[in-house]
């Protein structure tokens, strides 16, 4: 557990992706099974157990530390796990923060708090925990995962020792395996006693990591993807190769490690509906990019403004249909879309765009987002925001892997599959007919004119796929291109700047900008968004110098710069759309804002007004109208 904790600690301070990767690889290479597998599970969100509530932790600390001092410390540090980790009395540490002399008067020497008071209340609770231990042996059948049970038992056994022999307790440092196992099986009442024992045994960093883990707040600045990349690298595999087998595996992933290290077979996917890493495209920056490409070698279709998903179906060994919806990154999102999942009656995998359709019309991304951000999937939500998939491609069908076929052969297979399904929730993304690149440019500029009809507003651009392209995971350069519609642009005034991360940590590279509106005291600038890319390194240097030379106030890492009618820097901001926002004072927020030009020349008084954004927002929301009208008529 301490090794894992120190890894997390180092990751937390490390801003560079490659350095994180190196740290992860070192850890995976140098840590035995099953410990590293549990660590991988912790970093990929694969652990489930009953989380400890903050109140429980607070109560544990207050048995050992004066509550007033603890509360002052918590106010200062701001984070319960970290405060507890720092303040928890170690075996050789001073008792000066312990509750008070009168408690000590009862012979509760804080140094030996856990053992000398064994005859008191705490001892009683331990005995109680003991009488509750019988459920433990019954665990393996319940967990239905023999691997987990057997892999864990030695650790679990070792971990129990101090609790049994608590008269003679050199606290043994728990393994991550022991912690995870115990949390999954311990009755709630015994949790405090286990936690206290672990906290006694761990060092400060270990305590911090443990508390983050048990409270379900283990955010370490490492994506699941990065962790999988590090695992794959142990044996020279790409992250996508790990993704391919991932969904059939369970913590602590011993088969996975055996495979990447060349000690075992590639794990057979026991998942009848596995995730297949999607194929991604490169952007067309300008029309001239297309000059090098032969239009006859390509097929074109709309790029819909929803979320890219994969529908996967198959039969398990009992012959039951398995229905999975995966996000682009392989996250299983089936539970969030039961209305769509039930449409997966086929065996195979479809790549497509998840959209909300009302009365056959594709709704804007704004509408889709209202469904995405909900925790509970209620009947009302399903009725108001019916999920559909517009199919782009087919990756496998009836047990046959189609990814090696050229697009020109996959497309008819997809059309046949969708036709056979004949399900209202799944339809085909139509092809866009064209002869020249000019035709494509015209379609992109005005999708309605080429058959997109009323759905034109939900089109993000055009996709170009080479007819002979196999379906390759990742973003290979050449076969697929995305040509997005022209973004919206506004001129806004820089108001605040913040330092960036990693290589940019010494540059002011994140800019909050505002537009004009009529305020209570006349014309004012209100923040409408924040952007941190779109400029070159050379421009960044100039922007950084500008911020430093025009700072008017500082708030920690944030600087306010001079802005107003006569002072300030105008940034041309490109963005994809506007949403309502409660976070911004202006009430609107942009999608994918970036700096498209720096208008050193433009007077700030001539920057755009918030109303420009409100008009774009209104246009997006009009598409909600059919449903709004429906509700009104009900």
């Amino acid at each position, binding site marked *: 557990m301490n090794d894992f904790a120190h890894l997390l600690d180092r990751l937390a301070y490390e801003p560079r992706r490659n350095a994180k990767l190196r740290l992860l690889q070192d850890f995976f290479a140098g840590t035995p099974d099953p410990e590293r597998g549990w660590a991988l599970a912790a970093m990929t969100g694969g652990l489930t157990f009953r989380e400890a509530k903050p109140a429980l932790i607070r109560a544990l600390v207050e048995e050992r530390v004066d509550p007033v001092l603890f509360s*002052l410390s918590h106010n200062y540090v701001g984070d319960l796990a970290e405060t507890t980790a720092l303040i928890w009395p170690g075996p050789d540490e001073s008792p000066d923060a312990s509750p008070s002399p009168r408690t000590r008067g009862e012979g509760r020497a804080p140094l030996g708090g856990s053992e000398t008071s064994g005859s008191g209340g705490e001892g009683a609770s331990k005995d109680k925990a003991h009488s509750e231990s019988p459920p433990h042996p019954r665990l393996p059948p319940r967990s239905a995962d023999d691997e987990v049970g057997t892999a864990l038992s030695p650790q679990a056994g070792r971990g129990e020792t101090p609790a049994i022999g608590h008269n003679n307790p050199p606290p043994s440092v728990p393994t991550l395996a022991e912690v995870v196992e115990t949390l999954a099986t311990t009755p709630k009442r015994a949790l405090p006693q286990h936690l206290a024992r672990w906290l006694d045994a761990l060092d400060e960093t270990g305590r911090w990591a443990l508390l983050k883990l048990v409270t379900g707040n283990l955010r370490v600045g490492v994506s699941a993807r990065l962790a999988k990349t590090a695992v794959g690298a142990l044996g020279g595999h790409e992250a996508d190769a790990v993704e391919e087998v991932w969904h059939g595996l369970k913590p602590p992933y011993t088969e996975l490690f055996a495979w990447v290290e060349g000690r075992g077979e590639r794990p057979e996917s026991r998942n009848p509906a596995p995730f297949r890493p999607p194929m991604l495209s490169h952007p067309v920056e300008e029309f001239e990019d297309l000059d090098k490409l032969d239009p006859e070698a390509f097929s074109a279709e709309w790029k819909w403004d929803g979320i890219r998903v994969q529908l996967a179906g198959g039969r398990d060994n009992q012959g039951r249909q398995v229905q999975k919806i995966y996000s682009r990154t392989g996250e299983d999102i089936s539970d969030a879309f039961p209305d769509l999942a039930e449409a997966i009656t086929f065996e195979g995998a479809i790549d497509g765009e998840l959209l909300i359709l009302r009365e056959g019309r594709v709704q804007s991304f704004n509408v889709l987002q209202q469904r995405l951000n909900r925790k509970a999937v209620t009947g009302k939500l399903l009725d108001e925001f019916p999920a559909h998939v517009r199919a782009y491609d087919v990756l496998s069908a009836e047990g046959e892997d189609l990814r090696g076929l050229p697009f020109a052969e996959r497309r008819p297979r997809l059309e046949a599959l969708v036709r056979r399904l004949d399900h209202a929730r799944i339809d085909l993304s139509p092809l866009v007919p064209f002869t020249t690149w000019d035709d494509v440019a015209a379609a992109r500029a005005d999708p309605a004119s080429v058959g997109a009809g009323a759905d034109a507003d939900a089109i993000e651009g055009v996709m170009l796929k080479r007819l002979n392209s196999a379906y390759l995971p990742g973003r290979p350069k050449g076969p697929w291109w995305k040509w997005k519609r022209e973004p919206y642009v506004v001129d806004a005034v820089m108001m605040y700047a913040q330092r960036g991360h990693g290589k940019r940590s010494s540059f002011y590279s994140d800019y909050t900008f505002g537009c004009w509106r009529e305020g209570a005291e006349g014309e004012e600038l209100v923040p409408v968004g924040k952007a941190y890319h779109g400029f070159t390194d050379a421009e960044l240097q100039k922007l950084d110098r500008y911020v430093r030379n025009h700072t008017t106030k500082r708030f920690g890492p944030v600087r306010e710069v001079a802005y107003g009618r006569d002072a300030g820097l105008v940034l041309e901001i490109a963005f994809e759309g506007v949403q309502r926002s409660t976070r911004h004072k202006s009430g609107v927020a942009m999608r994918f804002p970036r700096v498209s030009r720096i208008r050193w020349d433009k007077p700030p008084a001539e920057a755009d007004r918030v109303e420009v954004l409100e008009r774009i927002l209104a246009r997006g929301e009009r598409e909600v109208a059919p449903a709004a009208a429906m509700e009104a008529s009900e």
Partner: protein
Amino acid sequence: MSQRASDLLTLTREGLYCPLGRFHVDPTRPVERALITHGHADHARAGHGTVLATPETLRIMAVRYGEEFCRARQEARLGERMRVGDVTVFFAPAGHVLGSAQIAIERDGQRIVVSGDYKRAPDPTCLPFEVVPCDVFITEATFGLPVFRHPDTRGEVRKLIESVTLFPERAHIVGAYALGKAQRVMALLREEGWDRPIHLHGAMEKLTELYKREGVPLGETPKVVAADRKDLHGAIVLCPPSSIQDLWSRKFPDPVTAFASGWMRVRARARQKGVELPLVISDHSDWPDLCRTIRDTGAEEVWVTHGQEDALVHWCGTQGIRAKPLHLLGYGDDGEAEPDPGHDPKMEEASA
């Protein structure tokens, strides 16, 4: 005891004042007669009439403010009793930085000790703290919360050396306060066997030279020349904290930013500053040492000057010791807000 502590020491606009001796201790504004505990800018300011301090502190003040920093200097020899007005005073080492001292004020068998800033942890660059038994102990509380338990400095310095081994191509830029912390880090690096040059930001140079003249061996400490910055692969470079995120540090090869401070104990603090390698090295007492020192002095009453007063005052209460916060302004910082990088760098060392 007919004489009350407040007859010996009281609080004025300028700071602590001894009416019977007609002098201030570490005044924050110019006064006629000042007794100075140590050379940090928040305690030692220019423009007083007479200054009584240890010879090292006087020399530090002369380096920082010029020879004319006051009208008359008077040297205090450690442990030597002196008559000032109607009281007797003596200085005792505080272990904070070179020349730092506690000031004991006595009259009619009563003794008040103003400790200034102090630490109990070993420091190769200054004399260790000495316990002076007293009736009233005036303490700082910069790290006056039980979450502050400073680790062994050797481990922290080793972290730095190990990082250089791991990233031999990257320069390691260590933020450290120019007086005391910087020289202590250098001395600790030498103790751990770092025998290559330690490169210094220009702001560190004069005080480091002074330390060397005072007999603290720090080895080779060249000043960083602007043109050479890009070639300092694997070098350890010391600079004021305000410079670690500055334009200045950018020219080094792929720099690793480290910061040597007691604040680095708290993750959010380190991250806020963009520190990648936090080094918990403090010149102040941690919580256990604050508590231990108060007990060691046997004081019946404790006044807390600056830092996290509330917690320490509360703790004194649980120990049956009378205590009050002085809420002294102008010392250190309120402990909540780090001095903003970029404002007067001399003030930064206050909250080291």
